């Protein structure tokens, strides 16, 4: 089931979202180990900080120049830049700019990949060797889905597909459950989750209710930020569902 089509060694720069570095290091470790397992030479540039998305989404993209400069300094020269977050990868793809180094910025914008996108489209793995014998619900994160096209969307008349679901379907013992509103936003939305606290919480609770109805033990997804928001609600309400990043499931042996 585990097939590799590209035996060449790829040099990968690992881009770990700042809050993952700080709060969910196990997700970064899983991403690193997973990529190494599939033959990539992975480097984590130590001076990386943040992509600048929190500022840009708050209306201060004009202040993100320093972040852009730092990102370019850290990630120039890598064939591939891989990030276990659709949202942060998207921010770089859409908004990384530099007046001094426009070519370097453009190259990085082309070379950045979200993790499941990289596994599916670059490594061309048709499956993974992993085992996770649990009932799992998939949370579809908006930026990965609607802007990076990691899966089809319910708004559009298009052939259904999902890179995450395709990979999860090859994990031994994993039982995947879909929610009735398959791709409704969880309400995290960056600073939205505090500026529009009431709506944000209500949106998260709808997601949780649907996963609860399915009787899942885990909610997984490609963006730890959405999962962090859901985890905060689950813990506060003492609901026995854990959140786990896709990389952690794919990296189980």
């Amino acid at each position: 089931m585990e097939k590799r089509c590209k035996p060449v060694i790829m040099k990968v720069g690992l881009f770990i979202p700042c809050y993952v570095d700080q709060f969910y290091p196990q997700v970064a470790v899983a991403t690193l180990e997973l990529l190494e397992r599939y033959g990539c030479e992975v480097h984590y540039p130590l001076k990386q900080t943040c992509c600048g998305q929190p500022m840009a989404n708050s209306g201060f993209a004009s202040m993100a120049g320093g972040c852009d400069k730092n990102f370019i300094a850290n990630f120039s020269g890598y064939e591939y830049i891989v990030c276990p977050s659709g949202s942060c990868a998207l921010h770089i793809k859409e908004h990384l700019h530099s007046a001094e180094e426009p070519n370097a910025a453009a190259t990085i914008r082309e070379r950045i990949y979200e993790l499941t996108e990289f596994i599916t489209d670059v490594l061309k793995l048709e499956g993974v060797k992993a085992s996770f014998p649990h009932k799992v619900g998939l949370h579809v994160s908006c930026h990965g889905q609607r802007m990076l096209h990691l899966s089809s969307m319910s708004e559009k008349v298009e052939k259904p597909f999902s890179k995450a679901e395709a990979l999860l379907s090859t994990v031994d013992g994993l039982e995947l459950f879909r929610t009735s509103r398959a791709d409704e936003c969880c309400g995290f939305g960056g600073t939205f989750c505090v500026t529009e606290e009431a709506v944000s919480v209500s949106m998260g609770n709808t997601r949780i209710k649907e996963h609860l109805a399915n009787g899942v033990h885990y909610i997984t997804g490609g963006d730890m930020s959405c999962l962090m928001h859901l985890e905060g609600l689950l813990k506060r309400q003492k609901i026995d569902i854990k959140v786990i990043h896709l990389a952690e499931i794919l990296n189980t042996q």
Partner: protein
Amino acid sequence: MSQPATHHNKAAAAFLKNGQRAQWHDETLWFVRAKRDKAAHQIPEWEALRNLGSQIKEHTLSNLDEYLLQFEANAKKNGIKVHWANNAAEHNQIVYEILLHHNAVNVVKSKSMLTEECGLNHYLAERKISVVDTDLGEYIVQLRNEPPSHIVLPAIHLKKEDVSNTFHKHLHTEKNNQDPVYLTRAARQVLRKKFITADAAITGVNFAVAETGGIVVCTNEGNADLGVHANKVHIACMGFEKIIPRAQDLSVFLRLLARSATGQPITTYSSHFHRPKAGQEMHIVLVNNGRTEQLGREAFRNSLKCIRCAACFNTCPVYRRSGGHSYHNSVAGPIGSILAPNLDMRKNADLPFASTLCGSCTNVCPVKINIHEQLWSWRQVLMAEGYGGSAKKASMKLMTGVLSKPAVYRLSTGMARFFMRYLPFLVNNRLNPWYKQRDMPSAPKESFKDWYKKNRNHE
């Protein structure tokens, strides 16, 4: 200078206080979205149709001046009187003068978001002219002295019992009789009399066809037709963006509109008005009110492609959970949030932030307006114009200062955990709104960076 309205987040929190009702609102609108999905999926060429609709609108906006003039010339040839209004005040005055000329004091009006935008009802009421909204939903909210909360379903925020109470108070229906048939019949009785006894009829416009000089009005109740046919004066009010080049373009837009709005293949009535009938006067008021300014804003011009189907309302998880009134603008929802700042930045500076930027609006839109990207772009404009306040700007500056300097960043992290101090959603402070209903993530022993240095460092 205008004052900021009640911030969307405050109005939304108030709306959500009644949890059961808010859930009902969310589910009701999600049901409409699901109906739309079903209707769209029955058209295999749906995405091609969206492309076509978008292209026709883009072409029209690029030649807006010519098409408006062509429309005016053809409408005049048909015997229609055409008026130009540069803003809401001019629009209201033009309508008033027409009514005055005919000594009209009782007016029936079918649904028109433009007249809401211009505040026409209020303006005419002050001049002793009574306007009755004849769309059932509009009539309900008018009796309650409320603005519509949705551009297609104006009374969607109300439940049967609310309508029952309102009709009992104003139309003297039986107390607590919530039977929709009974209530609708009661409204119908009143409205029929209004149609017959009115002096003039006002309608909105869904499409104005440049090559024919005719207009199309879409309703499900036939109330536009009733008003127009029963009266000697017909005034149709339209924003510049309603223009389409050819009659054949209707074959694209009529298919897109009703499916996107309510999941119907077509509205019950698609009424074409080309000329006044014998003995009648027909007027069309072409209204700018900021549209040419929006046309001049490159990042926002294609918001003028909107055909007012409200699919973006129904799909928006924020709209469904905050209700139309929380947007304090005649057009609510995601599209309203990108139209409103053009009309008044100070008053509407909060609206582009009433979104998670999930992008569902953009992909449901039948004419492919990049709504979520425009929400993002409005945020940049509004902050650059200083509508964010100095505190927000200062905290952002502090954050970017640290994040763009790796050495400072490293000092700030570690045990102290930079984010717990600065990232707005993770400030480790019980006053942080995050903490109100959510636990904080637990801080692990070491960051990934520390783990990596120990386990993998190649440097």
